[in-house]
């Protein structure tokens, strides 16, 4: 089995709204697929279909080798799900939350307790294990939620916006946890509105917009696909700035921009421009302190792919 998740033509409508409009995606075993898109793009619906919470109107999907529609219980035995809103039980302690899942999965009371202690230790929650989850910070809740979804040692983990609403430090903590899981062989499908998050964690990225996959590739491929890269040059001696600007204009065919630090930048079509610029400046005896081709940010990519900007309005997301 090469693909842990394979979905083809998934379609699902709520009334007249097409939440999923023919989604195809694959996640090779042991990799992370980042599903990127704004609110309402269908990311959560896709996760809910793949984790057997929703039945698709059309299309089919196999997770860990089993059909989500006809063998949901087999799928459920192999997946972990961490929903968008941390679904921990606030009135239970951290340890009780995790142990309860163990009991539901058929572990003995002792085994469930042991597994809970082990997982909580792994998520640096041992000290808070016997406190009610109500007292946990946002980051602790997410980690508890993750711990709870790992009790059954899932092969496939679905993370629906795992860091939405977290502060930067908690976000980094959650990222570390996810990296460790992937290093240990878990396949992950994660949805995010944070382009940076997909860039950090995902091997492959699919971009969702209005229920469809509008782009698919690695982070670098997506950046390449949307064209312009930026060539930046900073001469060691500011006196050479005029020469640099002239060379850049000659190579790129457009007037370069110059920032306050003496760095000139110009959009170029290919990396080959780098060599040409370097040759020309070297022959003219210009010493350089910086020369680079920078790919566009994923934000720019998203704008180029969907024709509209991402929406990073977290307040709205949390309230929804």
């Amino acid at each position, binding site marked *: 089995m090469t693909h842990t998740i394979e979905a083809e033509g998934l379609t699902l409508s709520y009334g007249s709204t097409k939440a999923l409009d023919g989604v195809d995606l694959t996640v090779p075993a042991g990799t992370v697929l980042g599903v990127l898109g704004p609110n309402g793009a269908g990311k959560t619906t896709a996760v809910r279909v793949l984790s057997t919470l929703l039945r698709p109107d059309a299309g089919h999907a196999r997770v860990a080798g089993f059909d989500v529609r006809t063998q949901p219980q087999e799928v459920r035995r192999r997946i972990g*799900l961490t*929903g968008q809103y941390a*679904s921990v039980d606030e009135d*239970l302690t951290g340890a009780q939350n995790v142990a*309860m899942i163990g009991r539901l999965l058929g572990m003995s009371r002792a085994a469930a307790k042991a597994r809970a202690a082990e997982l909580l230790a792994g*998520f640096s929650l041992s000290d808070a294990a016997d406190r009610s989850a109500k007292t946990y910070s946002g980051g602790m809740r997410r980690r508890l939620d993750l711990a709870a979804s790992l009790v059954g040692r*899932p092969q496939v983990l679905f993370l629906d916006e795992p860091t939405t609403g977290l502060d930067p430090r908690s976000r980094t903590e959650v990222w570390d946890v996810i990296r*460790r899981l992937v290093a*240990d*062989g878990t396949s992950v499908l994660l949805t995010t509105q944070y382009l940076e998050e997909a860039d950090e964690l995902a091997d492959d990225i699919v971009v969702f917009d209005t229920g469809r996959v509008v782009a698919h590739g690695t982070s670098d491929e997506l950046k390449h696909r949307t064209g312009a890269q930026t060539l930046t040059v900073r001469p060691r001696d500011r006196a050479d700035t005029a020469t640099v600007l002239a060379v850049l204009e000659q190579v790129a065919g457009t007037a370069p921009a110059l920032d306050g630090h003496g760095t000139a930048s110009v959009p170029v079509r290919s990396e080959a421009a780098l060599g040409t610029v370097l040759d020309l400046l070297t022959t003219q005896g210009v010493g350089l302190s910086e020369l680079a081709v920078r790919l566009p940010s994923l934000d720019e990519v998203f704008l180029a792919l969907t024709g509209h900007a991402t929406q990073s309005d977290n307040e709205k997301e949390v309230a929804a």
Partner: protein
Amino acid sequence: MTTATRPAPRFDVPEISSAPKLPALQQALTLAWRNVVKIRHQPEALMDVSLQPIIFTVLFVFVFGGAIAGDWHDYLTYLVPGILVQTLMFATGGIGVALNNDITKGVFDRFRSLPIARSAPLVGAVLADVVRFVTAIAVLLAFTALLGFRTTEGLPAAALAVLTAIGFAMCLSWVFVWIGLTVRSAGAVQGIGFLATFPLTFGSTALVSADTLPGWLQAFTRNNPVTHVIDTVRGLMLGGPVAGPLAWTVGWSLLLLAVFVPLAMRAYRRRV
């Protein structure tokens, strides 16, 4: 770091017994345990069922008792079985609100993504409510004992009365499970719950004998399942016919289960 999050090799799926019946029961009990732990962390969740029987007893016995029975003490004896069942009727409504909240908060998403019986979260919630029922009855019987209420048919019969009432309440709970899963907001669940419970409770023999009612209301009251439950409890605690009302009670209970368990399960599967 630690080794805690290291998943086992692929396909090492935890051993989950596939025997059809016992795991489902264990899962339901685990989820019932969850609800009971929640009550322990939040004892005020039992406030309604602990105070309600006292308030209603005081209200009916001392406000209406003299007018209805001439003597409040006689009325207390008539009333206790009625208040007992009435309190359970009101206590069952809470389950719909609780389930609605759990679903809105996403807690059930986790359960639905686990390889457990579909029915487990619902059965667990119904089982956990027994704690509320027992609390309500214990408070009522202790309080009315202080006022001088005594059963006349012995302890085993009184225990059977309590079991019958709780059994009926557990069957009735499925109506509210269904409502809780069907209606969108918790507030609406509560409203509909009251609409359903009030006529059934007050249009029964809980407070007054059916003989005093106008004909059309008598017809309703005599066929009201709540009346059958109250008459059973009254018979078992204070003497009087038991077999007839008990048979009706069991019949109604089974009917409620037969209709509302499938409806609730279907609503649960459909609820997004």
